[in-house]
């Protein structure tokens, strides 16, 4: 039985001058559903995320978000260079004037531990590596326990083992979270999502709906990351 739609996208179109990046795209994401958009580089994946976030306008089409305040994790960490790690992570709380409860502080400490950032709270972004910055951005996105998160290739600079620990922590702490993962790296897909919108061309048009097994077959089972996922007890 289909779940109720949290996000509905209908007939979305976007072009930059003569280059069409999104062509009549339609899909829906239900409550608790975790979906990936898998497409080659330059296919308009980040543009789609920006449109869904509201920082970019579509040429035409309809987007409906039902009872949800999405959190977006952009491709780059987008940390404030003049704020410390802790100040950056608590930025959404500050913006919303939300109280930082003991529970939030406990979650913050857990996240720091998972991301191996304990002891870096007072560091500034320029004092961190690229991977550490991305982890800070991930903590900032997930700390407020959002019901829907859009992830635009947020694990790029993070090594494979750390990536697995972080994804396991996300699924452990928020098993009912809805996710839209945009990526061109197949490794992350089976770890995090259940369904895949698969695009072959460098434009978001005519997607194939696949589950993880179908994607594995499409890309070939010999690929090492699928072996990793099968041998990793965190995802069993």
């Amino acid at each position, binding site marked *: 039985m289909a779940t109720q739609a949290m996000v509905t996208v209908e007939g979305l179109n976007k072009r930059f001058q003569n280059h069409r990046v999104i062509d009549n795209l339609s899909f829906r994401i239900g409550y608790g559903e975790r979906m990936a958009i898998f497409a080659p580089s330059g296919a308009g994946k980040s543009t789609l995320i920006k449109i869904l976030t509201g*920082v970019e306008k579509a040429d035409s089409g309809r987007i409906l978000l039902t009872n949800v305040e999405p*959190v*977006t994790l952009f491709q780059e960490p987008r940390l*404030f*260079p*003049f704020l410390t790690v802790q100040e950056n992570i608590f930025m959404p709380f500050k*913006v*919303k004037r939300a109280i930082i409860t003991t529970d939030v502080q406990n979650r913050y400490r857990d996240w720091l531990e998972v991301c191996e950032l304990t002891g870096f709270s007072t560091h500034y972004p320029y004092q961190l590596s690229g991977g550490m*910055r991305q982890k800070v951005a991930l903590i900032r996105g997930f700390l407020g326990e959002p019901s829907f998160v859009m992830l635009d290739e947020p694990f790029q600079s993070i090594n494979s083992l750390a990536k697995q620990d972080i994804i396991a922590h996300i699924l452990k702490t928020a098993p009912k979270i809805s996710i839209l993962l945009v990526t061109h790296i197949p490794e992350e897909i089976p770890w995090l999502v259940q369904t895949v919108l698969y695009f072959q061309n460098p434009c978001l048009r005519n997607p194939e709906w696949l589950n993880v097994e179908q994607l594995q077959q499409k890309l070939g089972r010999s690929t090492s990351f699928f072996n990793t996922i099968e041998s990793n007890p965190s995802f069993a």
Partner: protein
Amino acid sequence: MKNPQNFIISLRNEAAGVVLIIAAWVAVSLFYPPYVIPSPLAVVSNIPAYLPENFTQHLAATVYRAGVGFGLAYLGGTFLGILAFANKWVQPLNSLMLALQVLPGVILGVIFLLMFGIGSATPILLVAFLTLPTIAINTVNGLAKKNLALEEYLVSIKCSPIGIARYIYFPALIPVLESNFSLGLSLAIKVVVLGEFIGTQDGLGYLLNNARITFNMKEVFFYLVILLGITLVFQAIQSTIVSIFFRKYYYAAE
């Protein structure tokens, strides 16, 4: 005790600049007779001969005029720059300010002299009018370099316009305000001298003009050194304030 350290570092940097200027001055003075370019030693050794009794009053008058004129230009130019940026008047403002910059200072000084007579008004207004365009252009161009990626992030978390001003525009303004101070102040010191040439009977510009008329080059160089000293002291104070209170706004972005 970080603050005195910062001040000492600022002074040390300024001192290095002064040493370079003096070295160049010494080198050039070797090729010219003292009545054209006197050496630093010749200038210093003759100080008692040309130091007027009421020197401190002249010094205070110049500092006051440069300070008030620069203050007006700083506030007015920054306000105008912010206003132009907010209302998307960047191009018209740039054109207007460039047109103002073309105005010859001497002509403007004479106009102010005829309008307000001899006194502080001429140098103050001259400083304000000639420094304001640089500051306004600098402000509007600096604000245009705001961090768009961070602004998008704040929009994505539904940050209020006040929050965006606080986390995007204010940090973008800090380096602009600092460079406005550096650029504007050195320009103000130069212009106040011109204003005092034209429209006053006191101040370092007036003394410098008298020395220039009689070709007393040692005295001319003495006042130039004093003006350089004033600029350097203000720059050192400014660097110290920035390094104590605003250093984090200069940390590298990703």
